[in-house]
């Protein structure tokens, strides 16, 4: 059951206007044993979203064009749902190229919510569209996510305790975010952190908090294995080359030669699946502490 304060958002990835299959179980079961997945709870809450996320945090080539954006906004309007625009790191050229996209989004709602993952984009949007409600994205939130870490063997205690820490927990970062007009932090569940509800909800910080699920991101970059598998020889791993986004349909499971968990490669980014206890903790904390959960099951 959905708690009174919690909010559910669904990410319409890759320019889609709806995910008919809320739980793409065929793909998800690669990463989540059915018995451990809180399947029923998740299906129930995800089928009744309060908000839609569009855009992309990791690749500018996956941002919608203006027509795609208008289609998505129209579809969200028809459902009566507010929309959040995710943005990735952008170069000067990309900021200029996507100016029309931001303008269109601004015309739709002067106070709409935008998630930024780059300081330059943040400052550009603040200056150009001061009405936008800006959230600090998860690329700002640094910490320890390496899936190869065996935390049980980590000593001394001071080092082990660091796995509970991340940038958004620091007073300096919160002060900086406040001075930049940030209202919300967007984050992952850190894979090696203790399951502490107050820490996850950043209790006492006055920031709203979103958490992505059921995957967190490990690493990303402009070099893209998926695009590289499909492109012309001189376009492979060329950051300026065009891309017809094979990542929208083709994803991969990465299995570690040692003991690490299976990971998800989606486009230029590698994700880790949350464990059953992480998912359970997240669902409980969302209810008790009023988190926004952002469903990204479609990544798999």
């Amino acid at each position, binding site marked *: 059951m959905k708690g009174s304060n919690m909010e559910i958002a669904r990410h319409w990835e890759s320019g889609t206007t709806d995910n008919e299959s809320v739980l793409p179980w065929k793909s998800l079961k690669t990463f989540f044993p059915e018995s451990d997945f809180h399947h029923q709870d998740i299906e129930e809450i995800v089928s009744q979203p309060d908000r839609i996320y569009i855009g992309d945090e990791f690749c500018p080539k996956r941002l919608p064009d203006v027509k795609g954006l208008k289609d998505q906004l129209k579809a969200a309007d028809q459902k009566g749902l507010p929309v959040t625009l995710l943005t990735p790191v952008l170069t000067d050229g990309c900021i200029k190229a996507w100016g029309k996209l931001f303008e269109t989004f601004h015309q739709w709602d002067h106070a709409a919510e935008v998630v930024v993952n780059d300081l330059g984009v943040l400052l550009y949007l603040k200056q150009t569209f001061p009405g936008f409600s800006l959230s600090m994205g998860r690329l700002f939130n640094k910490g*320890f996510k390496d899936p190869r870490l065996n935390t049980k063997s980590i000593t001394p205690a001071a080092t082990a305790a660091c796995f509970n820490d991340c*940038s958004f927990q620091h007073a300096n970062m919160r002060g900086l975010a406040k001075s930049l007009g940030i209202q919300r932090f967007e984050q992952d569940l850190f894979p090696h952190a203790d399951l502490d509800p107050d820490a996850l909800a950043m209790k006492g910080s006055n920031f709203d908090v979103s958490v992505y699920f059921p995957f967190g991101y490990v690493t990303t970059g402009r070099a893209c294995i998926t695009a590289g598998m499909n492109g012309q020889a001189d376009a492979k791993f060329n950051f300026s080359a065009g891309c017809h986004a094979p990542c929208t349909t083709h994803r991969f499971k990465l299995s570690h030669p040692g003991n690490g968990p299976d990971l998800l490669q989606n486009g230029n980014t590698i994700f880790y699946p949350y464990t059953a206890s992480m998912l359970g903790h997240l669902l409980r904390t969302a209810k008790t502490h009023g988190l926004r959960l952002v469903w990204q099951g479609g990544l798999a």
Partner: protein
Amino acid sequence: MNIITPIRSLEELEMLISNGADELYCGLKTKEWDEIFSENLWMNRRSPDQANITSFKDLETLIAVAHGNAVKVSITLNASFYPESSMAYMLTLCGRLADMGVDALIVSDLNLLVELSRLNLGLRIHLSSLGACFNSFSVPFYKSLGVKRVILPRQLTLPEIEAIVTKHRNDMEFEVFAVNDGCYFEEGFCQTSHTLGAFCLTDWSITPLETHSPGTGNEIVYPDLKERLAHFKTYLWYQNNCGSSFQQDGLPNGPCSLCQFGDFKDWGVTAVKLVGREASFHRKMGSLQLVKAVRDKALQTQNRNRIIDYARQLRQTPEYCDSGYMCYFRKH
């Protein structure tokens, strides 16, 4: 246009200075850090024992000799994230480094940057490439935090570097990568740990998931999956200094931007950087000789083609250069 070179021990000092290093950078391994965290948590991105100066006495000597030769010294405090529990020690350390006469700190963690801007230790702050400055809009912000130089990330293209540098060259210094050590992921957003080895070099078993297009599977769309992945492995090989190989004349292979030094000079880039603090004496010396030769050529001539021809001639591996994978920064 200065050449900034890594150093990990006093044994390299004379060689680096006599071969033309204008600036040096090094990391530290300290007893105090190890007492709190052990070597399970690194103070910077490189191996404590293989890439760092291990005593303050050595650092003192390094600074004295470097300054005696008009060479500046920077210290890498470039972990992308310092836990709150390390911050008190980090600030004490920074104060000590300022007292010792270090010229600059190379920093990426925003929390540490904010602390340092408050403390105002009189040290120059250089934003590490892990700070991920990907556009010109973020430069004034870093300037407001006291940053004097921005080290641009590897994952930019030439036009993108030009856009940033030419817009801010009058109020910010810029440093770009010159040779060695590619990085498959963008290091500023990579949340893996080098303590376990390079994550990007993991020999993954890669399995296609079911395609989202109904009725087809990746196996059908990619019958040649192995060949396609071979291409990815080739790219990784180039990023990893062409398998850590050397040319026949002993100069090191690896990613570089040598052909672009003419552009860098004209745009107003302050320094070109050799990567690889843990590299061998031999690789460092060869890398420095290579970079100095091309930097000096770029200072002598306005003819870009001559610089490119010279760099390629020194490289002796036209087939590697033509692959495009050797270039940090591509034109298009």
